[in-house]
């Protein structure tokens, strides 16, 4: 199930004028905002209907953005009129701690930071590493209420020239909320169980189909094996675990996933020794406790 930003933020029910900043919407109560939308050729605002709520792992986020340690949410927002200026931040994000009544800084992230963050998030979405649990959704809705109140209170379109530094123009239109999920043991365990189940199913199918083949090249070509490889490093602990029972099966997969080669020249073809080399590598790399 995909939760939209509107679902997260709409619990308070009093900010529809902001969230539904869509030219096709008939629910626009704020005439100033409607004017802005209709007069700035920002038809791309229609994309707001597709704004999403997503979650990312805190551990992974902090590895890439150590300066965001302690943040619990990122709110991406546009400031539509600002796109008329080259220097102003049209698209930015605001960071929140667990206290979502106001962002850590109301100045928002720079264009460079936004670019880096979007690239990171796209990669996370492609990998699909975190699926929000129902508890996470409930928590996000609670936080969304506070964020909505901030959006409402911060809304300002006063001043003579919105591009002036002294302008009171501040119209953050929310487009995406990112929940930063700590390494909750239950969530982590759930993820591990999912990966293990997928690996077990694919491995079972693969063994059934290729057992008796003499060429590892043919064995590796099988779609189930290729899917296991495409799971990436997250599956490495299970490959290593199974290697104890099946020393042959996962040698090519480990090589392809990790791009490592712990096998010594004199061990080539000696399957048990090759497996042992990989198990030792797994211990050194922390995959095996």
């Amino acid at each position, binding site marked *: 199930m995909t939760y939209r930003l509107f679902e997260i933020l709409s619990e308070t029910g009093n900010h529809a004028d902001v969230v539904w900043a869509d030219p096709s919407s008939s629910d626009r109560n704020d005439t100033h905002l409607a004017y802005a939308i209709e007069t700035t050729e920002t038809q791309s605002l229609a994309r707001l209907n597709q704004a999403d709520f997503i979650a990312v792992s805190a551990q992974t986020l902090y590895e890439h953005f150590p300066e965001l340690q302690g943040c619990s949410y990122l709110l991406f927002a546009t400031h539509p009129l600002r796109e008329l200026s080259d220097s102003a931040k049209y698209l930015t994000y605001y960071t929140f701690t667990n206290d979502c009544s106001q962002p850590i800084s109301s100045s928002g992230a720079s264009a460079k930071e936004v670019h880096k963050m979007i690239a990171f998030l796209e990669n996370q979405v492609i990998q699909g590493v975190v699926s929000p649990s129902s508890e996470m959704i409930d928590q996000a809705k609670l936080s969304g209420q506070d964020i909505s109140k901030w959006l409402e209170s911060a809304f300002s379109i006063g001043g003579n020239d919105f591009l002036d530094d002294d302008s009171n123009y501040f119209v953050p239109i929310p487009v995406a909320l990112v929940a930063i999920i700590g390494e909750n043991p239950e969530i982590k365990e759930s993820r591990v169980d999912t990966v293990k189940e997928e690996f077990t199913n694919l491995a079972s199918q693969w063994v059934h189909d*290729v*057992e*008796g*083949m*003499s*060429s*590892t*090249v*043919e*064995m*590796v070509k099988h779609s189930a094996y290729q899917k296991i490889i495409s799971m990436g490093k997250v599956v490495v602990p299970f490959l290593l675990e199974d290697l104890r029972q*099946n*020393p*042959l*099966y996962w*040698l*090519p997969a480990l*090589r392809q996933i990790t791009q490592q*080669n712990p*096998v010594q020249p004199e*061990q*080539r*073809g*000696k*399957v*048990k020794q*090759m497996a042992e080399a990989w198990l030792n590598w797994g211990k050194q790399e922390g995959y095996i406790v």
Partner: protein
Amino acid sequence: MGRAIHLELRYPNLPLTEYTVTSPKSQEYNCFAWAAGDQERWWQPTPEDEFFWIEGVPMEETLLAYIKAYQTLGYELCNDETLEIGYEKIALYVNDEGIPVHAARQLTSGMWTSKLGALEDIEHELEGLTGERYGNVGQVLRRSNQATI
């Protein structure tokens, strides 16, 4: 050790011919190693997978590369799969593309011995393993049984 239904399901010609299982399963060697008398290594001419291949022989999955590999052990091309006194033979099975997918070694009885991937060894007739999985015999090799590995 007798016959095995799980093998007959994979190799439909087996139950139509004479065969018997002669070893438990093993992932330590494959048919290409077994044909050469090697029970300690998995032979595979793919450089990226770190399996064993004879030094100096092209690491490529072609019939020529496999022939060259066995030639280093004294084998030569042969067109006759029947038992010849004074010779031991290897049969290379190839798929539709002519790529070797299996090897069997002839025993002094005239029967053949094969390692079936990571499964068991069997004694069998050459025709017992032809079919979808191992294709057909594409080349027979022979060497004097006085030669040593």
